[in-house]
């Protein structure tokens, strides 16, 4: 299901921290329904870029349009309501609340009529429905990451931004996670920051490579693999 069209369009985004230009003039287009991977060496500006997209940071320059509307100056919570969900690079859940309550807070934001049913549905998609009554802080790390994805899903976003979701997961968990992302992609656009190249090459419809805050290349996995500049800078082949 790919209705086509552009969901998000960023132009000339820039953000500096003191003298460090973390993002220095990046254009990015996300097509509706695609899985778009963002790769690049550490410090390339990936997390800063997605923080600009979801509103955790405001840009020094540039514009962001989401669903055709300018959201550049919108605060993060308004963008979440407009349909941009973000899962943190460093897992951010409510450890002292039950797993159920973590997800129910996201469901509540959507105004869903059947809060409990919608909460269990989101938990079921990541396989945590049996853990609903446990305090979230007692879950294993991999399960906490899945809980965070469930919170993102429960927001029923049009764009789900996953910031290094497979970091710290076991091989088996990564395989299951790839299946989950494919499922999510049926109903939402996914922007994926990822270091694991197998995951990226498997999942991504398109890939954007960042280096030193700039776009080095954008294209399909095959194009990126064949790109000499990317090979030199990043893939090391």
């Amino acid at each position, binding site marked *: 299901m790919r209705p086509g069209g552009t969901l998000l369009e960023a132009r000339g985004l820039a953000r500096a921290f003191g003298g460090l230009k973390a993002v220095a003039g990046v254009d990015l287009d996300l097509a509706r329904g695609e899985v778009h991977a963002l790769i690049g060496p550490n410090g390339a500006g990936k997390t800063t870029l997605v923080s600009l997209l979801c509103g*955790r940071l405001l840009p020094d320059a540039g514009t962001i349009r989401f669903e055709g509307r300018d959201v550049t100056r919108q605060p*993060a919570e*308004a963008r979440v309501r407009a349909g941009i969900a973000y899962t943190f690079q460093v897992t951010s859940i*409510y450890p002292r609340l039950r797993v159920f*309550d973590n997800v129910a807070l996201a469901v509540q934001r959507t105004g869903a009529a059947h809060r409990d049913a919608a909460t269990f549905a989101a938990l079921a998609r990541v396989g945590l429905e049996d853990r609903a009554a446990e*305090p979230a802080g007692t879950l294993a790390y991999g399960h906490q990451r899945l809980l965070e994805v469930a919170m993102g899903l429960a927001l029923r976003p049009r764009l789900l931004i996953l910031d290094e979701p497979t970091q710290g997961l076991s091989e088996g968990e990564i395989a299951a996670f790839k299946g989950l992302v494919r499922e999510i992609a049926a109903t939402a656009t996914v922007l994926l920051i990822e270091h694991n190249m197998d995951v990226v090459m498997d999942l991504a419809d398109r890939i954007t490579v960042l280096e030193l805050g700039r776009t080095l290349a954008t294209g399909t996995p095959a194009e990126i693999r064949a790109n000499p500049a990317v090979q030199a800078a990043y893939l090391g082949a």
Partner: protein
Amino acid sequence: MSARGSLALPVAVLLLLAVLGAVLPAYHATNLARIMVLAVFAMGYNLAFGYAGLLSLGHALFFSAGLYAAGLLAQAGWPGIATLPAGIAAGGALAALVGLLALRTTGVAFMIVTLMFAQAGYLAILYFGAWTRGDEGFTLARAARSLGPLDLAADGPRYAVALILFAIGLLASLALVRSPAGRVLVAVRENPERTRMLGYDPFRARLLALAVSGLYAGGAGAAYGLLFGYVGATFATVQYSVLPLLWVILGGAGTVLGPLVGTAVMFYVVDLAAWVTDATLLVVGVALMALVLFAPRGLLGSLPARALRWLP
């Protein structure tokens, strides 16, 4: 799920308080009326501190706003049916106003900013001594202390009004913390950045908590003045910002009945200590150190029945 909880315990506590009002000797009944009014103050503080995680050191300002609004208007001849709501509104409005400015800060800065606002309020009361009578304060004539047909200076009506006010405060705070808005307060306390990224505005949630907290403080202040007949600047000092914090910590922050328990225990600790020594604050200090050492989550918060401090 269990977050909806039952009303059995709070209703049982209210019934117990009603029975105690009928059977206790006058001295203790008056004490208990005082405790219930102060517990309303503590319940409001608990909404801001226990649920929304706002450590305010400025609640004396909201309490004294209600106290003076009701007291000055009563002195000017307004009936209790108007002065009590005026006190509630004064506390809530002032808390919302302070919140708009102070909630731009968090943590220690928030404590300092709220403390400064409260000190400014205290100094303003002294400055306008011509009306407020400053430190000395003023007593309310019996004629000014009525609520409809009730004479608030008489033991029976005083206890009844204190109980009704406490009951309204208790049930309203239960309703709030079990509502969707109440869940967001806890979420903001537990992880503000995550809550923002679920689409909630933490500033709005905190402002709501502080404003409602101010309504409680203003209502308690107004009731205190009308029921016990004295209005004075002592109630605007920093001591009355710290006391609700202590009552809430003692009873158990983030529990609905904790404020009542904490206020009652502290009240009687001071009362009993006064039989032995003039240094009652020393006894309070020792009690608090024991609390921090042996029951850091307060008397109710330390009950083992609950693994989670989600809701009461």
